[in-house]
């Protein structure tokens, strides 16, 4: 159904290029601050919690649970489900749910990351684990 959907290629920038380079290897990266210990998403160079610049890249498990979702019933490219996934590592990330029955999504459901190709770096999505 949505297999043929074409996603926009990330523009990328110096602050986030490492995320997209890792995505090409199938790795889902988050940033962690070594000063306060907090992980965050999307990645910044300055920690949004303590303002330390000691943030480092960390490969996330890619596993999490659905915090919320909404199924957009109509769009020019067909129905799609947007939502937030709370990662095992803590941060919640905005995403789309793919490769599943979109009507059966549930808050609290376990999901895992899956990458979909674009004309540039692949984009992270989530699907039931």
């Amino acid at each position, binding site marked *: 159904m949505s297999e043929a959907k074409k996603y926009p290629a990330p523009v990328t920038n110096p602050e986030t290029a490492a995320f997209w380079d890792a995505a090409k290897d199938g790795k889902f990266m988050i940033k962690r601050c070594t000063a306060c210990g907090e992980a965050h998403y*999307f990645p910044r160079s300055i920690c949004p919690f303590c303002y330390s610049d000691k943030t480092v890249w960390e490969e996330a498990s890619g596993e999490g649970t659905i*915090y*919320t979702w*909404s*199924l*957009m019933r109509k769009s020019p490219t067909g129905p799609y489900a947007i*939502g937030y996934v709370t*990662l095992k590592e803590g941060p*919640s990330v905005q995403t789309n749910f793919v490769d599943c029955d979109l009507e059966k999504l549930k808050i609290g459901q376990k999901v895992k990351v899956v990458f979909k190709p674009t004309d540039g770096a692949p984009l992270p999505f989530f699907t039931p684990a």
Partner: protein
Amino acid sequence: MTIKGKAYIAGIYEHPTRHAPDKSTAQLHAEVAKGAIEDAGLSKDDVDGYFCAGDAPGGAWPMVDYLGLNTKKLRHVDSTETGGCSYIIHLGHAAEAIAAGKCSIALITLAGKPRTGAMPPRAAGAEVDFESAYGATTHNAYGMCAMRHMHDYGTTSEQLAWIKVAASHHAQYNPHAMLKDVVTVEDVLNSPMISDPLHRMDCCVVSDGGGALIVTTPEIAKSLKKPLVKLIGHGEAMKGPRGGKDLDLTYSAGIWSGPRAFEEAGITPKDIKYASIYDSFTITVLMQLEDLGFCKKGEGGKFVADGNLISGVGKLPFNTDGGGLCSNHPVNRGGMTKIIEAVRQLRGEAHPKVQVRNCDLAIAHGTGGLLGVRHAASTAILERV
């Protein structure tokens, strides 16, 4: 320092159009500016402060020029852009400028034509690569809030539907309203699902149009002929996912802007006789009522049910013009019309069928951006003198 009592709303104008393919956006701004200036009994050459947001073609300086404002006199401008609540923020900023002596007669305008043609996209933020592909729209961003609110608090679609039902009861008396038919809870539940769990009738209309305000000093307001409406409290706030930590979509930035405004005004939600609450979606109203303190968090569903928001029926008459759900939503931005209907209520100029008796304290509250992603909120508390 406080802005309490330092500024009055002396002029209001809501454009009657809901579809304006035959007009330019700048022209609509000029028509609402003219309307508000004339409502106040002033001349455009009296204006010495101008406020506009992202809907004003080209921003403040092209608008000041196009509107023919008196540039020898104009000494304060503000183009703060916070989506639909921009104009409620402008109202507070105008009061601050007036209190500081930076201007004495401020004009605030909103106008545009989303029903005639698509609006230009907003400039991308730092999140663009990590969010834009996922297709967040107003519908699904507010759908995500409603979904989680239902999960956490047991809020139901029936309860949300009561908000639309109340708006429709008011809209039947507004000759300019796009949707004048009174609807039932069943009508809302039977309307097509747009983005779960929001039905079509949980969504506001798309309309062309606009509105404008004149904000001035107490002295000038008292020299004019209109009933006196005073700003006594104001708050503004912003909220976003903030790195994804402790995400909670069941509350909005209104949880901060509301208390700031009430504290400045020195009153509580119980004192409010009429509430203009931005109603981009039914869930927007329910969450704002909780965040502003009209009921406890999670009890919004019970609060809005059974006609509690219907003028003459319930305890908290809201959006007596029919609001965005039924009357209009000019430029996809509901903040301006929220202030205008609150002023009508305080002046005693609302439709007799929905006019709140002895309406001396009103609130106008709105949000801008996407409640489910990142947004602003602003609260204004107004008193009839």
